[in-house]
C-alpha cells in the first residue's frame, strides 16, 4: 500500500499541528454558539473527527452523503443526496467540514443545498485547498488547512478507488498506479 506512494506531502505531525491551529481559530470564532459541524461522507471523516475533538466548546456533528460523479449510484446524471442531515439547520451556525476543495463543484452544490435551509451562518472549513483546477472561483473558504499543489493525493480520508483512506499521512500517488488503473479500464 505505502509502496504506491511517491512522496509524503503532509505527515502525521504536520496535519495534527494544523488541525489544532484550525480548532483554536474555530473555538474563538464560534464561542458560545454551539455550531453544527456538517461533513460529507466519506473523505472528511478523519478530519472531522480530529478537528471536533480539538475544538474546546460545545458543538454538534452531522453527516451527509451524496452521489459522486462517475460512481455506480450516479447513473441519473445529476448529483443527489444519499443521506440527508438528521437535524434541522435553520437558524444554526453551520460549518461545512471538507477534506479537499478542488474544482469546488461538490462544495458549491452542498453550499447551495444547505443555504436553502436558512442557517444563521454557513462557512467552509477544508483541510486541503487545491485551487489549481478551481471552477467555482467565487467559493469562499472560511478556514483552510493547507494549500496543496496539483498532485493526486490520498490518505487521511482521501481515496483512490476506495483505497488509501486509512493512511495517517497525505501522500502523492505514484503516476504508474494511475496509469495502470487507466490501462486496466481501457482494456
Amino acid at each position, binding site marked *: 500500500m505505502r509502496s504506491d506512494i511517491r512522496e509524503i506531502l503532509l505527515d502525521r505531525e504536520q496535519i495534527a499541528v494544523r488541525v489544532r491551529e484550525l480548532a483554536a481559530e474555530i473555538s474563538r470564532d464560534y464561542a458560545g454558539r454551539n455550531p453544527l459541524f456538517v461533513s460529507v461522507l466519506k473523505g472528511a471523516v478523519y478530519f472531522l473527527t480530529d478537528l471536533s475533538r480539538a475544538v474546546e466548546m460545545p458543538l454538534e456533528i452531522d453527516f451527509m452523503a451524496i452521489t459522486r460523479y462517475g460512481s455506480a449510484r450516479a447513473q441519473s*446524471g445529476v448529483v443527489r443526496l444519499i443521506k440527508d442531515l438528521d437535524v434541522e439547520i435553520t437558524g444554526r451556525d453551520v460549518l461545512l467540514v471538507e477534506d479537499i476543495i*478542488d474544482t469546488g463543484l*461538490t462544495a458549491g452544490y452542498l453550499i447551495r443545498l444547505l443555504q436553502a435551509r436558512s442557517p444563521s451562518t454557513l462557512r467552509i472549513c477544508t483541510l486541503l485547498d487545491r485551487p489549481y483546477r*478551481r*471552477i467555482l*472561483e467565487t467559493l469562499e473558504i472560511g478556514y483552510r488547512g493547507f494549500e496543496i499543489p*496539483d498532485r*493526486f493525493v490520498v490518505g487521511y480520508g482521501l481515496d483512490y478507488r476506495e483505497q488509501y483512506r486509512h493512511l495517517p499521512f497525505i501522500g502523492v500517488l505514484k503516476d504508474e498506479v494511475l496509469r495502470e488503473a*487507466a490501462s486496466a479500464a481501457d482494456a
Partner: protein
Amino acid sequence: MGGTNPAVKGSRSAPTGAVHFAHQSEAEFAKILDFYGIRWEYEPRAFPLRWDDEGRATESFNPDFYLPDLDLYIELTTLKQSLVTKKNRKLRRLRELYPGVHVKIFYGRDFRQLLLKYGRESAAAL
C-alpha cells in the same frame, strides 16, 4: 477593427446529448457540469485576436465552454505540447485584448486527473 467586441458564434445551451462535441473529453466535461447543476454553453463565442488590413479577423480563439452563472470561459486541451504552446500564446493574446474576460484552461493532465478522481479511468485514457 477593435479588439473588444467578440463575435457571437451561436449559443447552444442544450441538453448534453443534443450538442455535437468536437472531442469526447468535452462531452465528458459537459456531463460533469450537468451533474453538479452548472449551466453551460458550448463554444458560444469567437474572440478575434488578429485582423488583416481590411479589419477581417485572421485569428480567433473559441473557448470550449462558457459558464454563464460564473461568467467563466473554459478551454480544454488534450493536445500535444507543441499545440499547447500555440494555444497558450493565443490565451495570452486573448487576455491582453479582453482583460475583462475570465478564461480558465484545463490541460490534458489536469483533466485526466480530474477524471481519475471521479473513477473515470476509461474516459481518462481517451
